[in-house]
């Protein structure tokens, strides 16, 4: 993947379609990929569900934290009463074993945590990655050495272990979802910084950047006016692929009991609570697992689509926006 990224050219430098703006070209290329479109639809739906969680649960008439002791069979370990884990008009996806909490409500509120944390973490990663990458690419030998070695250290650090350690030492009064997002963001920005640095080094040699530098522009101005627009494509591409990774990391941290705290629902936390119930109440495990699977798959396919749409070589295989189709028609 990174090979393709390194080889890809920023849209601003892609002159094969004169007149078409980068954004319009991007949409045309993305639209041509059916899988990416479906994935985009699924992602949009998930985001909508997450945003509308209070509304949806209000329609159902439930909330994610209220206990319903009468809906579980206490003598049998608290297994939900009724078929399929207590699915019915009142509880669309049944109830949680032992507590009787509504599973639909927990699932849609869980989507807020999973998506929110993953997006926020990605934002942190992208910001740090760009700053470090551009600074290393534009800076002198010493700055580059220092930042590159720091990046190497970050890349070499095991994400899960670092996150576990950091989450354990921060006081529990700190808002948990924010903390989880920050930690994932602060621990896993290494690869995006490397990609940005590599691109910056290539761009630095291009005539228009060299011209800007020679005309006496400062590093900051060069970075802002000349480099950032050109870096947008690789960064967006990589960010799109970071989101699903971050979702799984959040789920894993919550699964290990250091993520968001109860009673806030998150998919990872639901998974950890459900793992003993896979035989007695399978839907309890399948719901968060399925939600996680669909979300990560959709985001990955979408990220792949974005990469294809931004990569002129891949786009040429699609024969969209490269001008070839028009040539063929002519």
């Amino acid at each position, binding site marked *: 993947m990174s090979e393709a990224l390194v080889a890809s050219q920023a849209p601003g430098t892609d002159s094969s379609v004169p007149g078409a703006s980068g954004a319009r070209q991007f949409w045309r290329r993305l639209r041509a990929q059916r899988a990416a479109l479906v994935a985009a639809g699924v992602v949009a739906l998930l985001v909508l569900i997450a945003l509308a969680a209070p509304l949806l649960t209000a329609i159902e008439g439930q909330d994610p*934290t*209220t*206990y319903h*002791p009468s809906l*579980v*069979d*206490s*003598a*049998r*370990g*608290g*297994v939900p009463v009724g078929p399929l884990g207590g699915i019915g008009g009142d509880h669309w996806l049944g109830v949680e*074993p*032992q*507590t*009787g909490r509504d599973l639909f409500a927990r699932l849609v509120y869980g989507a807020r945590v999973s998506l929110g944390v993953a997006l926020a973490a990605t934002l942190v990663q992208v910001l740090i990655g760009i700053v470090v990458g551009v600074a290393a690419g534009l800076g002198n030998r010493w700055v580059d050495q220092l930042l590159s070695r720091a990046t190497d250290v970050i890349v070499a650090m095991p994400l899960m272990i670092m996150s576990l350690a950091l989450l*354990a030492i921060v006081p*529990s009064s700190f808002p948990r979802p924010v903390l989880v997002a920050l930690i994932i963001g602060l621990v896993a920005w290494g690869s995006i910084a490397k990609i940005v640095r590599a691109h910056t080094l290539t761009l630095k040699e291009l005539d228009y950047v060299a011209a800007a530098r020679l005309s006496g522009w400062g590093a900051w101005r060069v970075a802002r006016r000349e480099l950032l627009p050109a870096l947008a494509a690789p960064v967006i591409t990589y960010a799109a692929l970071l989101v699903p990774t971050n979702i799984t990391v959040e789920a894993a941290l919550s699964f290990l*009991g*250091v993520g968001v*705290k*109860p*009673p806030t629902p998150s998919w990872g936390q639901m998974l950890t*609570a459900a793992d*003993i*119930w*896979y*035989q*007695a*109440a399978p839907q309890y495990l399948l719901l968060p697992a399925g939600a996680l699977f669909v979300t990560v798959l959709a985001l990955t396919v979408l990220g792949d689509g974005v990469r294809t749409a931004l990569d002129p070589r891949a786009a040429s295989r699609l024969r969209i926006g490269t001008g070839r189709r028009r040539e063929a028609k002519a």
Partner: protein
Amino acid sequence: MRHPSVIARRVAAASVSLVVAAGAAACGPKDNDASSAGADSKPQKGGTLTVLNANPQEDFDPARLYTSGGGNVPSLVFRTLTTRNRENGAAGAQVVPDLATDTGRPSKNATVWTYTLKKGLKYEDGTPITSADIKYGIERSFAAELSGGAPYLRDWLIGGADYQGPYKDKKGLDSIETPDDLTIVFHLNKPEGEFPYLATQTQFTPVPKAKDTGTKYEEHPVSSGPYKVVKNENDGERLVLERNTHWSASTDAERKAYPDKIDVRSGLDSSVINQRLSASQGADAAAVTTDTNLGPAELAKVSGDKALAARVGTGHFGYTNYLAFNPKVKPFDNPKVRQAISYAVDRTSVINAAGGSSLAEPATTYLPDQKSFGYTPYDHFPAGKSGNPAKAKELLKEAGYKNGLSITLTHSNSKDFETSPEIATALQDALKKAGITVKLQGLEDNDYSDKIHSAKTEPGLFLAHWGADWPSGGPFLAPIFDGRQIVKDGANFNTGFLDDKSVNAEIDAINKLTDLDQAAQRWGALDKKIGEQALTVPLFHPVYKRLYGKDVKNIVISDWTGVLDISQVAVK
């Protein structure tokens, strides 16, 4: 118990599971016995009993074991001065003679205890067991390298506090006398009517001085019981026990010892153990576990299968899970706030979080609901089945919290269904109805344990539990409510910082009693009186359910251990 270390207590908690571990699947009620324990045949000698366990028997030195009543597997190899009665239910909570001829003869003020050994007792090599060996066994438990046992001997024996063990101090403890080979006399620094209970612990096992190999003794401890160790691999992960031919059933009324061989295999995942016991195939048909309970999800599955449900043993160990207050932290200094929370708890949802009504029973008393503890029913702040938020709100209003209250509840993050997030979240939901907003503070288990047992860091409100070192009110109430046991630096268990002269005096008075039934009654009354102060909110007593293989017979589950007694099990 003046200076119990956190470690020791943690081991105590572990010993609860060890003891539990020491027992296995069982059928508590006697009527269950008839159907499950081989209705068609009487238990016969012979065969191999397999024990499937999660935790290896890492400590197998009688000096280092922290057990209630001598443990389960250890009790097959180690005999003690007294032992627990191997009977179902309440009868099993009695202390009975083992190596001794009786449960001990106290002096008038219960500070001197005299025991006489039975005649003809022998070790696995045929040499006779003497009272000097019991003295030596106790003395070596004072050695730093063999620590791990309960703190009582150090606290009770005259000179015990400073004694370093026989390796450093050849002279031994003067407070243990052995006037002849069959007599042993203990001199205590204060009256302790419950000494016979203490004499069930493995520190009272005879250890022949000539065979003592120090820290290596646990690899092959010399047996005084019906089985001897023939294999001990990977630090107790695999143990094979075979008959000790020098053990005589005529001197041992308690251990039945039906199987010829006991094969202990540990290091298994708990779900694997329950899976193998439910499948009950091959050697697993004659298998039990001495440390793995059925969890809520497994219970849901087992209870749907009649044949499987008949192979579940149910038992009650003296144990209470509760909410603890630190009255030094606001607003818990106000009794009305503590009472309000007592009224507001929803025991039904707490019990569901603990695994449901089959795995936990509601508790309104601090003492376990068993006769031997002197159980005296009370419910000073009746919350009913699911809480009384109206009454709680009323009390909060009187306490000056008209617009509700915001508090923090500290719990452990371990997945134990006892002090874990599940229980805390259930309480959070219940207190919400009374206008109390609960913030949860989940701590990593070791951190949690350190914090709640330090007077300086103790949180205002936290989940706690306490298990019995023996089935009596003494080891349940004294460490928690005796004002003289408040420890400012170090491990403190009097978490409510109660220092009430009348309570302290009553504890001293009961310790003087040598009539254990009478003592039990007084403990029960004391519990009821302390309960009025609402320093704790008793939540539930756990119930142990364990599977056993389909060829396993003669299931006996006492209220002392709450789990199947491995010395009674037959596989033929």
